[in-house]
């Protein structure tokens, strides 16, 4: 099995950009990814592209990925749109890794894009529900806020956890995102702000929910040979694990865990030959505050029911033992659905190369965790600094 590396990663600013399009946003991310490569890269070297998008707003449902690659001048390369809801570009990365690992390609572009803020409010609500189980779950009257709120209700009922524990996710992630110039909501919030904000879906308040966001992200995935040519300090894709689960929450064994995260993490850790204790930092899928708590547990950072304790003790703060979502996470950095997974890779790439806005001291190994819907598809990646064997 050959090793696969990330040699460049960049994102557009995440936010609300009525003057931009999905193509112009992607162009920004792509340019920044190219700029992040240590040595000169000729775009002719890019063999293939996998781009994630849900297609919110419907603007170009068919063939949107070729529309993007042609727009940025990647003329003629094979391009595939990946759709796995919010995990679309986590899976796009996985496809790029597989393409390089198989030997079919040496340099592959992975990324994603989404424009979410230009639709009417009714239209937005329509799109925010399209990745839930449609025939039963959505038609019980839920959107994602409702489904994650149901998880939160079950979690608060089952464990020693409170609304303030949910708010601690927001406080931490906003504190991180306030340092990130690409963040959609780059401001700090207090525990009181978060707990006392208007209720979106009980027990979740506005501050427990990520925003809808416009943005794009791009990652350059290379074989060892190409990485050696292009990069001083590439990021090694040590593990790529993914798993599917029932699309509807009601169809799963547990309401307080995302089984697909557990399986995807096991697979990623096994491929990387590590365990959760070997991780220096993680970018986890905090679309709703409860999702970050579940992620701690499902990724093996703690036992079930113990996630609130990690937050209370500051373990996941930037100066803690396991910093989580130094980018600000989906909560503060934003959640442009198809761009989110590759956007997490951008943060991990910068952390591992010492370029992060909130830098984790001595970061050698990070995990990214990207969830589609409420857990129907999950991609987990283990990333390590430098060429294989170089990281401590």
């Amino acid at each position, binding site marked *: 099995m050959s090793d696969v590396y990330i040699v460049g990663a960049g994102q557009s600013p995440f936010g609300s950009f009525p003057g931009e399009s999905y193509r112009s946003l992607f162009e920004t991310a792509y340019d920044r990814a190219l700029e992040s490569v240590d040595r000169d890269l000729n775009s002719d070297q890019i063999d293939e592209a996998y781009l994630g998008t849900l297609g919110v707003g419907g603007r170009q449902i068919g063939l949107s990925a070729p529309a993007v690659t042609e727009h940025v001048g990647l003329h003629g390369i094979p391009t595939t749109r990946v759709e796995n809801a919010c995990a679309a570009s986590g899976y796009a990365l996985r496809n790029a890794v597989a393409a390089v690992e198989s030997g079919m390609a040496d340099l592959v572009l992975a990324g994603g894009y989404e424009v979410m803020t230009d*639709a*009417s*409010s*009714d*239209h937005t*609500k*329509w799109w*925010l*529900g*399209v990745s839930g*189980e*449609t*025939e*039963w*779950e*959505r*038609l*019980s*009257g*839920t*959107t994602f*806020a*409702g489904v994650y*709120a*149901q*998880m*939160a*209700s*079950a979690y608060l*009922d089952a464990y020693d956890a409170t609304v303030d524990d949910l708010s601690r996710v927001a406080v931490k992630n906003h504190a991180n995102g306030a340092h990130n110039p690409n963040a959609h909501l780059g401001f700090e919030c207090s525990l009181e702000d978060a707990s006392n904000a208007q*209720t*979106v*879906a*009980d*027990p*979740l308040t506005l501050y427990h929910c990520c925003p809808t966001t416009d943005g794009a992200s791009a990652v350059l995935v290379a074989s060892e040979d190409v990485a050696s040519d292009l990069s001083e300090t590439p990021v090694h894709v040590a593990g790529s694990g993914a798993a599917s689960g*029932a699309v*509807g*929450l*009601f*169809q799963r064994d547990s*309401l307080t865990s995302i089984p697909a995260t557990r399986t995807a993490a096991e697979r990623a850790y096994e491929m990387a030959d590590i365990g959760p204790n070997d991780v220096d930092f993680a970018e986890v899928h905090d679309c709703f505050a409860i999702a970050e708590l579940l992620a701690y547990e499902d990724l093996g950072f703690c036992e079930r029911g113990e996630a609130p304790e990690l937050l209370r003790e500051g373990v996941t703060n930037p100066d803690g033992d396991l910093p989580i979502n130094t980018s600000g996470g989906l909560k503060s950095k934003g959640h442009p659905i198809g761009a989110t997974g590759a956007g997490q890779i951008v943060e991990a790439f910068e952390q591992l190369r010492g370029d992060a806005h909130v830098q984790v001291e001595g970061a050698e190994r990070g995990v990214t965790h990207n969830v589609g819907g409420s857990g129907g598809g999950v991609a987990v990646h283990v990333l390590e600094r430098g060429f294989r064997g170089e990281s401590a």
Partner: protein
Amino acid sequence: MSRGVAAAGVHVPRFRLATAESADAWDDDHAGGVERKAVPAADEDSVTMAIAAASDAIDRADVDHDALRFVGLATTTPPLAESKLAPRVVRALALPADARTATETASPTAGLDVLDRALAADGPALAVAADAPEGDPADADHRMGAAAVAFLVTDDAPVEHANTASHADEYPGIRYRKRGSTEVNALGVTSYERGAVRESVSRVVEGLDADPEEIGGAALHQPNTGLPYRVCGDLPQAAVASGTVVDRVGDAGAATVPFGLVRALQVADGGETTLAVDFGGGGAALGLAFAGSLDAAPNVDAALDSGVEVSYERYLRERGYVVDGAVAGGGAHVSLPSWRRSLDGRYRLVAGRCPECGGLTFPAEGACGMCYDCVDFARVELPREGVVEAATVIGQGGAPPEFISQQDRDGPYAVAVVRFTLDGADVTLPMQVTDCDPDHVEVGDAVRATVRRVYTDEGIPRYGAKVTPTE
């Protein structure tokens, strides 16, 4: 052989509006003596009310679902102006597909029409009247209520059908609804109207050939509280009172007189005759005479006197009078063929039991949700009672677009993951919680499934189970 009514079921919507509220709102009282009326919730209509009443009647009768040979549904407020409604009741309650059906919609007498059809049929028969008429909000609407009544008709019934009589003549302009309108109207020529009803009712009472001395109860055409007494002729006032319910439920269209009939039969001592006579706007009256009393029925007085009172503003919202149902961009689309495939799951919570592992899967299709084998499920009906495993409240602004209209009308709603247990196996379903204060739905609550309107897509209302708290 004494064919007649073996059991009855009723459904009165949970919300009630006191006439004082509408009188305050309009500085005027056109309620015609109605003191309090029932108000259908935003997710109720004549179909859901009919299913609720029919289910109640069937549960109270010692009759197997499969034995029914006739299913009649009466309403003046069908959710679709043209479309048979009885088949929806047939499917929702798993009644025999080869039963004869009738859907009567043209006048308040539709309720007695389908009851008469049921009495004339062979074998066990079901007659349901469910209605929620509307009128000019400034006027006739003050008295418009809602209710559903179902009669289970069999041979050898405790309430024997003694006679049927009819009278038809042309009396236009009395109670009518223009094509395309939702408002029941009348020209308001009072003496003419009263005379027409009096003449028609008295002819029918004559035709019923009942001994006035024997008449203990009479449910007469009652668009308001006064009219039945003005048109009852020689019938005893006490008998008319026993069958008059309009003061407590409102003018429930085709369901009012049937509802009054159930009450009169319930309070009858058994040795008397009970009449039901209704008048339809075009000029047709129909009457039925019964002997005996009815035990297999819910306590009608208790059903009438319960409920949650709402303000007039809330009433306008629940009824949809001040809500625009249009949604930009449309709602979640499930094609009608796809929807139809799911009907047994929607109405009756039919799940799949895995022949390999015994686990339950909902809906009953695809691989087993427990062992993931592709199996031929045994189709099993889950119990109607379940327990809330997770719950939230979808507030204003949080609903998917297809539920925005309902939310504008009914306010925030709770959505829950509900666990149902059958023979030691369990399965969870996503369910909306209706007829409750959504803020009080908690993990661990006991709930019961009831059929309501889920949403309307492509102009076609779609129905399915929601749950209501049982405590």
